[in-house]
């Protein structure tokens, strides 16, 4: 599907193209997200890129008031918190992502298990993985 190397740089390049890509071990069929160059299940070194469905549910989250410099530069802070979460995709793999389209000022209204769909968000000069309510 793609002969790009199994690196974070390739993953980011895919994100910029609007694709959330995982790797799959051609030996034992285990799916990996983030992508990997060696399969931790069978130690196999033969992998392939696979596009994910981009659909999943929220597994854990937080609403952050004091963010890192990059998020502060993007306008987030005490008066404008943002939501970071861990998303479990339908395929059974999980990934850290920004959670947009939810009210981070009212975290009690954000729910573990709620359905999400992938988005690609330009933040501080790069495309960042994000999910929004489905």
């Amino acid at each position, binding site marked *: 599907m793609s002969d790009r190397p199994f690196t974070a740089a390739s993953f980011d390049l895919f994100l910029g193209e609007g694709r959330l890509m995982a790797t799959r071990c051609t030996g034992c069929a285990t799916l990996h997200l983030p992508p990997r160059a060696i399969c931790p299940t069978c130690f196999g070194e033969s992998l392939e890129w696979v596009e994910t469905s981009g659909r999943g549910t929220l597994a854990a*989250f937080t609403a*952050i*008031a004091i963010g890192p410099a990059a998020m502060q530069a993007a306008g987030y802070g005490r008066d404008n918190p943002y939501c970071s979460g*861990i998303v479990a995709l339908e395929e059974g793999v999980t990934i850290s992502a920004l959670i947009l389209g939810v009210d981070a000022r009212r975290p009690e209204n954000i729910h*573990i*298990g709620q359905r999400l769909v992938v988005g690609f968000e330009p933040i501080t000069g790069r495309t*960042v993985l994000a999910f929004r309510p489905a």
Partner: protein
Amino acid sequence: MPKIHRLARGVAVVGAGMSAFGVFAQKSSRDLFVEAFKDLRASVDQGLDPACIESLFIGNFSSDLFEHQGHLAPHLADAVGLTPRPATRVEDACASGGVALRQGVMAIAAGLADVVLVGGAERMTRLPTAEVTDTLATAGDTLFETPAGFTFPGFYAAMASAYMHQYGMKAEHLMHVAVKNHNNGAVNPKAQFGQTIADWMQGRITSARQKNKPVPAWADVLDFLHDEAANPTIAWPLRLFDCSPITDGAACLLLVAAERAGEFTDHPLHLIGSGQASDAPLHDRVSLTGLRAAQAAAHEAYRMAGVGPADVRIAEVHDCFTIAEVIATEDLGFFAPGTGYGMAEDGVTARDGARPINTSGGLKSKGHPVGASGVAQAVEVWKQLRGEAGARQVPGDVSLALTHNVGGTGNTAVVHIFERRA
């Protein structure tokens, strides 16, 4: 079952010391380490001639970023006059100190040295808070976690969200952990916060009166902790008082081959169990409500020591955030999964409870100079097991203790078990 590994020869702790923990604008990590070393020297019952020390292992997370000083270990060795002995810096984020201790144990058990100085040091407050946050975040996965906006309070807050969802814990349960650890820190003269949260609240009320400002009407400590103005949210559900502070500090331990302990003291601690493990980033874990690395490290340490969780009288656990203490006490087998969150409120983990946790005040109240914390945990154990903890001494016979030190979000965990036999 994997093979049970044992130390090839016994290792004992015969001295322990620490600097004051706090904010010290004029002290480098070198100054803090010298302070800890002098405190250790005074703790050796039969006196210490530093010339007998053969090797140093120093836990330090990021002197490079915190104080623009790399290659810290030989500089610390030199500051206490110990060059040309080998001096090695050990880095596993906030578990650096605990892992340095394990390296010292390994050096003695392997027969490469009889007398080892284990240290930990971190000077954090030189940087503004935002840069400290960014520096700590480098212990996470900067490729796949940092772009999602995660900070360290954020990671542990996400774990708390999963724990609350699974077990029904409320944010208020975590407040009781903070109250308990500040109660302990208030009677630790080396702690960054020598105040209970009640003292803290009263200080705010007194200050408001003196300045003729509106006097807050908090009914009690929990009311104070629920007040967003007094205890702001950092990363929901964690608030300021759920987070350990930014701290300058150092600690050190003197380890010797057990057969030589008598040259230093009649009351050594025997290091009977050591375990360490690693794990993937938080999003790549089987569970978000327990740390697999901590469970594995504890398992290894218990098997080596031939003891179980029920035998451990006191423990210093890695409470970088209140939720981390709850999860730690479950990972260590003290409480069943999903039941640890009520133990502070019920008094079980208090100094006079059935299972005292973090009698030093923990990272939460004693302070968390990250590379020093794992070593400072053992300093508390040294005092408690020898009956030298003063106002915070746990009552009764305390002969077995455990330390639990975590790096990152549980990417590293290291557990040690100590026993006093005389």
